[in-house]
């Protein structure tokens, strides 16, 4: 029974892990640096395609075949190419403010998508097939844990703090001597590279990728994950990713009536979460927890006469 349970959930858990990694990358850009990037999926796609191109075309040529090594190198390839793509997008876009930045990132993502559709060697619109199966659930979760840990530490470094300072008040940050352009750029590049990692894991798990993965609709899913969970924290993004993958999956097994309309229920849940908790579910949970704490400790606090 345990064995069946595990087999059952491998695919959704793998997808959850990949989505969570993307969300962490976006959290750095969106929540950390405050940049409204609506094209995040494009970096994920670029990373995925490059990693796949490496294992399908370059690896045989170089005589490499050891799966562990191949996977590690393709992770690097994925991250690197996504970083490059991020550079190409960020340099012109970071000059723009707010809404215009959002529109420009969206535009670039669609352009990248169109470019991918036109390269025949990677399948064009028909998608890239024939990718060997190199990654799996353990890989995905390991990378997720690593990225999470690394970002948590990064947020406490000087650069991490500078990024958040820039988000909070760019002018004040600049007056403190922070190079705000450099901090925004670093956040963007790091976030895209992380997306590239997710892409490399994806292509080697599903053995297929199509240019639709760069679509605006995919970017929106990641933005949803970050915002619904709570965009000010890493945990929030992972939570958001969990919800986004888990809810449609769980609904898949609901009685037939609900099952057919599960995307409708999902959309309704998204809307309601936004209306009742615009800062994300994480803040909702915290608010409820705090209220509960306050009720419990208020009398105790008065008796102790101190801070609660």
């Amino acid at each position, binding site marked *: 029974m345990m064995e069946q349970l595990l087999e059952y959930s491998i695919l959704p858990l793998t997808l959850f892990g990949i989505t969570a990694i993307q969300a962490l990358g976006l959290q750095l850009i969106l929540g950390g640096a405050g940049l409204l990037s609506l094209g995040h999926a494009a970096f994920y796609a670029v990373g995925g395609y490059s990693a796949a191109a490496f294992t399908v075309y370059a690896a045989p040529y170089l005589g490499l075949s050891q799966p562990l090594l191949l996977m590690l190198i393709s992770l690097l390839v994925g991250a690197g190419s996504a970083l490059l793509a991020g550079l190409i997008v960020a340099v012109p876009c970071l000059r723009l403010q707010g809404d215009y930045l959002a529109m420009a990132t969206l535009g670039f993502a669609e352009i990248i998508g169109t470019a991918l559709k036109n390269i025949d060697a990677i399948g064009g619109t*028909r998608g890239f097939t024939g990718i060997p*199966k190199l990654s799996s659930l353990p890989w995905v979760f390991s990378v997720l844990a690593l990225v999470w840990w690394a970002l948590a530490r990064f947020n406490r470094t000087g650069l991490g703090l500078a990024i958040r300072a820039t988000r909070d008040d760019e002018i004040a940050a600049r007056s403190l001597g922070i190079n705000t352009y450099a901090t925004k750029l670093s956040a963007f590049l790091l976030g895209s590279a992380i997306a590239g990692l997710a892409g490399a894991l994806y292509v080697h798990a*599903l*053995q297929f990728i199509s240019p639709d993965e760069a679509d605006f609709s995919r970017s929106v899913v990641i933005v949803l994950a970050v915002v619904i969970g709570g965009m000010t924290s890493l945990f929030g993004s992972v939570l958001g990713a969990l919800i986004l993958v888990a809810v449609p999956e769980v609904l898949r097994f609901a009685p037939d009536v609900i099952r057919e309309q599960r995307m409708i229920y999902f959309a309704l849940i998204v809307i309601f979460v936004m209306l009742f908790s615009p800062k994300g579910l994480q803040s909702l949970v915290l608010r409820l927890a705090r209220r509960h704490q306050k009720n419990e400790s208020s009398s105790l606090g008065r008796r102790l006469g101190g801070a609660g």
Partner: protein
Amino acid sequence: MTMPSKTTRRVVVTALSAALCSLGLAVSMVARAAVGEVKVGVILPLTGDKATFGQESLNGLKLALEKAGKETPQLKIQVEDTQGTPAGSAAAVNKLIATDKVAVIIGEVASSNTIAASTAAQSAKIPLMTHASTNDTITLGKDFISRICFVDSFQGAVMAKFAVTNLKAKTAAILVDSDSDYSRGLRDSFKQAFIAAGGTIKEDLVISYSQKDRDFKTQLIKVRKAAPDAVFIPGYYTQVGAILRQAKELKLNSKFLGTDGWDSPDLFKIAGAAAAGHYVSSHFAADDTDNRVQDFVREYKARNKENPGAMAALGYDAGFFMRAAIKKAGSNEPSKIRDAIASMKNFDGITGTITIDKNRNAVKPAVIVTTTEKEFKFLTRVNP
């Protein structure tokens, strides 16, 4: 008691939530197949712009399984909707293999989708048999992949010879769907055969369109200017219907030739009066006078309230064929089923007598039909 660090707490919470979700997923457990029962995965485009193909295939398949009744082997089908896209097909196959543990898979319809699905099937060593994908490359080098329909190198040549011999066409243009492996493969085989039979196709008369296009005026004007004898459109009905309609509007008078991607009742709805007077290669025609075909048409119509198209017929044959193969294999082990499929000879289907060759493709005849404003009409049969 010291509190674990914030990070640790959160990792634990997430892990617990993930575990809870897996339990949630397991609420409706799919039972392991009982003995005498074989789990068959089915991937079809039940939604999207090729939906009639998927729906018809499923109807045909279900009819076949119903007719087989309680005899063993019992096929237990698990159907996944691919939404008619390569990505959807790959995802569907992954789910069927990883989660449902099927022994064999039937599907998909569009060649691009089947190609996307076949990598995962091949590497997991689960046989995949397509009832409708005709692109030649699908079975190349993948010994777990097979099909019970003819291939495009045959289909393209059939239409080319028909154009030259029956329609006396000397020049042709090709409108190819650049998003589709099927269309591109047919473009190549038609071109080759047409030229070999003495016709000419100018380079700039091989014109592309995309499945996302709705307006084909620009492409059609180019064709109109050159006024070729025949225009070959190896595409899918949703776009072809619009192309035919717009061609008529632009007073384009060449003869249109089509392939099995046209075979859908929706073609007539979209094209309207413009649907009439064309020639299409396919697997089956509902007005074929063969007794078995007529029996099938009657039963299908009674159940589904409309005439079956080629996809329904292929789905029907797939059902019986798969049963015969599994019976021959005498086991529900994937590799034994694969071997059985590959060795089937002279299977009497309603889409023709099917023999599987050494490339795991079907050797069988093609049917040429003509179109009226409302339906397809049988014209002739072409043997391999």
